[in-house]
């Protein structure tokens, strides 16, 4: 597997595709951080928040979207870009049958490709964070504290799993369709559905179950249904995890009734407590990756390899 891994990693890093992604992400990362950093600096009325660095990632003052939102939206594209031609490309070039007639197990090929893609994502994500920390320190004049660094690291890990899902999905499609273009389009279709249309779908379902909410309880019920349905989408899982992870003050997803919110102290949660809240999300993301990968395995192990 390691042979395939290193070859694929080298391929990723020398490909033009990767260069484009890198430039794009670095530029947007710098811009978003700089804009929110300036906004924080100029905000002289309020004393600086406790977790300024996390604010750099999540604040969307002066920018259209925060860096975290951007990564949530753009991350899938990175995964799809790295994965959509992994198997179909080998089919198209006629290299698959040559590689598989070497004494390697078939799974080492997809494992190697998957982990090479995942490593590439981790490196990309890590470099953005380092950029943010560097730029943030210059802008704000002090370094992040330990808790912030931990939260950013976990944010990276969750992000890599999230992008890993899209990578696994793109690889699955590239295996199923064997045509690069079809695989890319199918992945993009799923991505569009999961990131845009899922909101419409969840609203529709919630409205069908609770037609016209009049009491607060009914409203909350409807919001709950909406939340649950939209959690089919890995994008929702990711953005909810991030909203808790990068905002220590957050302690609920979506709406909370007044009665539920009563008595909550407006103090930040400890890292462990935030993690507790999003643990199911992380597990589900992980499971989704495993499912995609498992299906790829089953198909690929028995597939006939004709050049």
């Amino acid at each position, binding site marked *: 597997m390691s042979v395939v891994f290193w070859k694929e990693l080298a391929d990723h890093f020398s490909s033009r595709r990767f260069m484009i992604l890198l430039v794009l992400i670095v530029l947007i990362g710098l811009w978003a951080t700089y804009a929110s950093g300036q906004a924080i600096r100029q905000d002289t009325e309020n004393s600086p928040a406790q977790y300024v660095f996390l604010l750099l990632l999540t604040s969307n003052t002066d920018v259209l979207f925060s860096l975290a939102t951007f990564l949530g939206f753009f991350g899938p594209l990175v995964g799809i870009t790295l994965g959509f031609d992994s198997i179909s490309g080998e089919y*198209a*070039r*006629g290299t698959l049958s*040559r*590689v598989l*007639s070497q*004494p390697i197990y078939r799974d080492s090929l997809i494992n190697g490709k998957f982990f090479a893609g995942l490593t590439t994502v981790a490196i990309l994500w890590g470099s953005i964070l380092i950029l943010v920390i560097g730029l943030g320190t210059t802008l704000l004049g002090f370094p992040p504290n330990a808790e912030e660094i931990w939260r950013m690291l976990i944010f990276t890990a969750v992000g890599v799993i999230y992008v890993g899902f899209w990578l696994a999905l793109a690889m699955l499609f590239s295996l199923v369709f064997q045509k690069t273009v079809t695989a890319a389009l199918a992945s993009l279709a799923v991505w569009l559905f999961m990131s845009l249309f899922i909101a419409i779908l969840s609203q529709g379902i919630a409205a069908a179950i609770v037609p016209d909410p009049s009491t607060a309880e009914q409203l909350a019920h409807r919001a709950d249904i909406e939340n649950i349905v939209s959690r089919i989408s890995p994008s929702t899982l990711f953005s909810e995890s991030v909203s808790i992870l990068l905002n220590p003050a957050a302690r609920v997803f979506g709406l909370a009734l007044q009665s539920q919110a009563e008595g909550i102290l407006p103090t930040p949660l400890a890292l462990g407590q935030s993690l507790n809240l999003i643990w199911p999300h992380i597990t589900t993301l992980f499971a989704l990756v495993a499912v995609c990968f498992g299906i790829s395995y089953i198909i690929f192990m028995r597939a006939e*390899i004709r*050049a």
Partner: protein
Amino acid sequence: MSAVVETHSLTKRYHDKLAVNALSLTIQEGEVFGFLGPNGAGKTTTILMLLGLTEPTSGHVSVCGFDPARQPLDVKRRVGYLPENPGFYEDLSARENLLYMARLNRIPDSEARRRTTEVLEQVGLSDDGQRLVREFSRGMKQRLGIAEVLVKNPLAVILDEPTLGIDPDGAIHILELIKSLNRERNLTVMLSSHQLQQVQEICSRVGIIVKGRLIVQGRMDELGRAILKERQWNFLLEVGGAADGLENDLRTIEGIDEIEKRSHGLFLRCTKDVRSDVVSLLARRSLPLLQLRSEDPTLEEIYLKYFRGA
């Protein structure tokens, strides 16, 4: 001598189509076996089953003593496979492509470097090793494919249509290369082709497959006999000068069955070798002999006969 490839009533079925039908085949060590058949006869499917790249529906396969479906790695360590239209990583140089394959075979790096140089030289690409594969012509790619098959130092190689789409000169080069590898390394070669005229010279034995069935296998001369039951003596005779009455004189020779006029001379269908009698007849009549050619059925004819018969 031991069997390198052995199949026994090997069958592959795709839905309701039988791609390979009860194929029994043996290839001995050190042979060059020509696996011949028209397009879509099941040649590639058979090869894929030999390598464990697809599973047989039924039947038994053994390659180098291993079952490719159960012990694919043991087979692949020993057998090199060159697919039809081999593809390469176009952004890598020829040498890098070979090194990648060597690494997949777990050949240590220093050894791999030495071997790539060696095989590149063997296939005549030593000057092009550093070039990107995308700049290669078809013939060069095919030779690179053979080089790659040799990197792992195989016991046997399976080549799927090695001369497909290559100009005649290039094809001869490749076939000569295969032949010399067979001689020098005692490499067992199985090559599939539909251009039997091209490959017949280098094959020590051939098998002809039509519509998934192996119709016949054996040495070339045996094949001819098997098909035509007995050797036929057919000659083409062309003489110069006035040849009046030659036909009648020829008829007196024992063994000439039929005489047919062709555009250039006469076609003699005989029951035995009559060449010396014909030559002495011409000498007696002092007619200049332009040509007397044996018109044995070529493999091409045999092959066509099978195709039509099937």
